[in-house]
């Protein structure tokens, strides 16, 4: 993946502008549901961060993981564990510590998983994910199967001066938006780097990468840790938003949902999985508002998208430019 084609970039920037301005027009469009929808969109952006981080593994490095939610959940649990009861955690301590923990745990899990490929990798990551789930479900560390509350948002202060009040839903919305855009730009930067090029090549033809003199396992491991850590960031934000963590955050349902977002949105494009998160969640909201049997139309919807858009929502956007000039004749 190199530079985005112009039309796709324009559409994405327009969507981003819509998202950034949402708190302004949302209250006009849906006056009585504004608070709820603002929360909802914040939550979708958090899921979009997770979906993009999973795309690094699945769509780019070719490692289909069914245990990604373990890192999402761990990031959230770290905030719960690091927050003193009824008091605020210091974000400058809690966030780095949470991310470092996720990175360390993912390095161990990754080192044990990346030597396998295909189905075996899916099964191993699934197994590790479920181990994480049962670890928090069965231990007394943070409320066991009941989960744990985070009563107060972390503080963001420098020298005792509060920079941001995360208790404000509006502020938190923009913090998450910043994290979302930041995660995207970070991943784009990494993909353009020498490291990222190797990881992309591994996704296309791992054996050839080895033949060229790269040790694929090292690059896969680092990609795995980067993806997991970004998922951990999403989990941290999710836990802060809802003020609550429970083992379901780590469950394979959560991993599977992220995978559906990646596939629906278009694997390997980064922005596609982010769009996938919006499409899936907005569709869910739509069906939920019409019928309580929303899972059935939801399933049909997912099938329809996958059948009609084999390259996902992103494929649709990228098609905007697929009118290449007739192949310049050779030797010209």
């Amino acid at each position, binding site marked *: 993946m190199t530079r985005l084609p112009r039309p796709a970039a324009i559409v994405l920037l327009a969507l981003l502008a819509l998202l950034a301005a949402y708190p302004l027009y949302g209250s006009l469009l849906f006056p009585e549901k504004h608070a709820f929808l603002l929360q909802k969109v914040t939550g979708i952006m958090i899921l979009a961060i997770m979906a993009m981080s999973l795309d690094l593994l699945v769509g780019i490095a070719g490692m289909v993981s069914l245990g990604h939610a373990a890192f999402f959940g761990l990031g959230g649990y770290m905030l719960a564990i690091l927050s003193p009861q009824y008091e605020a955690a210091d974000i400058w301590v809690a966030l780095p510590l949470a991310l470092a923990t996720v990175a360390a745990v993912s390095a161990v899990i990754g080192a044990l998983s990346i030597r396998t490929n295909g189905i075996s990798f899916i099964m191993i990551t699934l197994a590790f994910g479920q181990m994480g789930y049962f670890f928090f479900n069965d231990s007394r560390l943070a409320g066991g199967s009941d989960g744990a509350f985070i009563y107060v948002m972390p503080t963001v202060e420098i020298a005792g001066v509060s920079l941001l009040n995360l208790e404000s839903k509006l502020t938190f919305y923009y913090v998450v938006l910043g994290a979302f855009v930041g995660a995207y730009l970070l991943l784009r*930067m*990494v993909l*353009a*780097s*020498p*490291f*990222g*090029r*190797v990881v992309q*090549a591994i996704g*296309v*033809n791992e*054996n*050839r990468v*080895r*033949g*060229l*003199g*790269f*040790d*694929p396992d*090292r*690059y896969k491991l*680092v990609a795995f840790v980067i993806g997991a850590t970004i998922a951990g960031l999403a989990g941290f934000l999710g836990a802060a938003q809802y003020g609550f963590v429970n083992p379901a955050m780590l469950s394979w349902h959560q991993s599977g949902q992220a995978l559906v977002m990646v596939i629906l949105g278009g694997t390997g494009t980064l922005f596609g999985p982010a769009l996938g998160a919006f499409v899936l969640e907005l569709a869910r909201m739509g069906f939920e508002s019409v019928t309580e049997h929303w899972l059935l139309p939801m399933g049909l919807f997912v099938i329809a998208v996958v059948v009609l858009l084999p390259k996902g929502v992103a494929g649709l956007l990228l098609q905007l430019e697929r009118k290449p000039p007739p192949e310049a004749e*050779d*030797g010209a």
Partner: protein
Amino acid sequence: MSADDSVILETRELTKAFGGLVAVNTVSVTVRKGEPHAIIGPNGAGKSTFVNLLTGHLPPSSGRVLFRGRDITGLPAHRISRLGIGRSYQKTNIFPTFSVFENCRLAAQSRLSTSMRFFRPAVTLAEVNRQAEQAMEQAGLATRRDRTAGTMSYGEQRQLEIAMVLATRPELLVLDEPLAGMGKEESERMVALLKGLAAQYSLVLVEHDMDAVFSLAATLTVMVNGTLLESGPVEQIRASQAVQDAYLGDGAEAY
């Protein structure tokens, strides 16, 4: 033995068994600098397995591989590549969704001390770009720079295969059937390319096309059923009765 500076690659009783099948059986070969070395033999003779042993794509069951006098037996493929053995594949093995340039650029990038660099865009590495451009030039692909590799003709993809090897700046080229599946015209172009390479690099060539072999190689090794039948200068092999009987024969080869 390895004090001999002219020897670039040497195998000693190299053996690979897959279960009960001995694909390569105690093969000892010496490759010298500046003497293009072709390995021939009927299908199933163990040539490709032999190449995989040389380049670390398979670990040998026993025996040794020495590169410039250094024991490289059992090293993984990526380490061997970094030591200076560049290998091309019998079946086209490229990154079909990448541009020709990106294929070569990535190959050249493999010579950085590490690619664990996360911030600067890869395309701004001037020296890597230069090596990639040069490799495309050498392989006759300069005009295809921005083509998506998988959309090129088969012959061009084979050229790209070579260009990627060259971009890794190898000392020794190990080319596994570079002419496989090519039409007459494509073959001629490839042979011309290989002749140019034979003058610049040490070369091990596995090939079926006898015309190409005789026009390129100085030394021939003949393998049959996993064993080395004979190895020596081209003229000696051509005159060898054993080789005549087993392989070059009366045209009714064991293909």
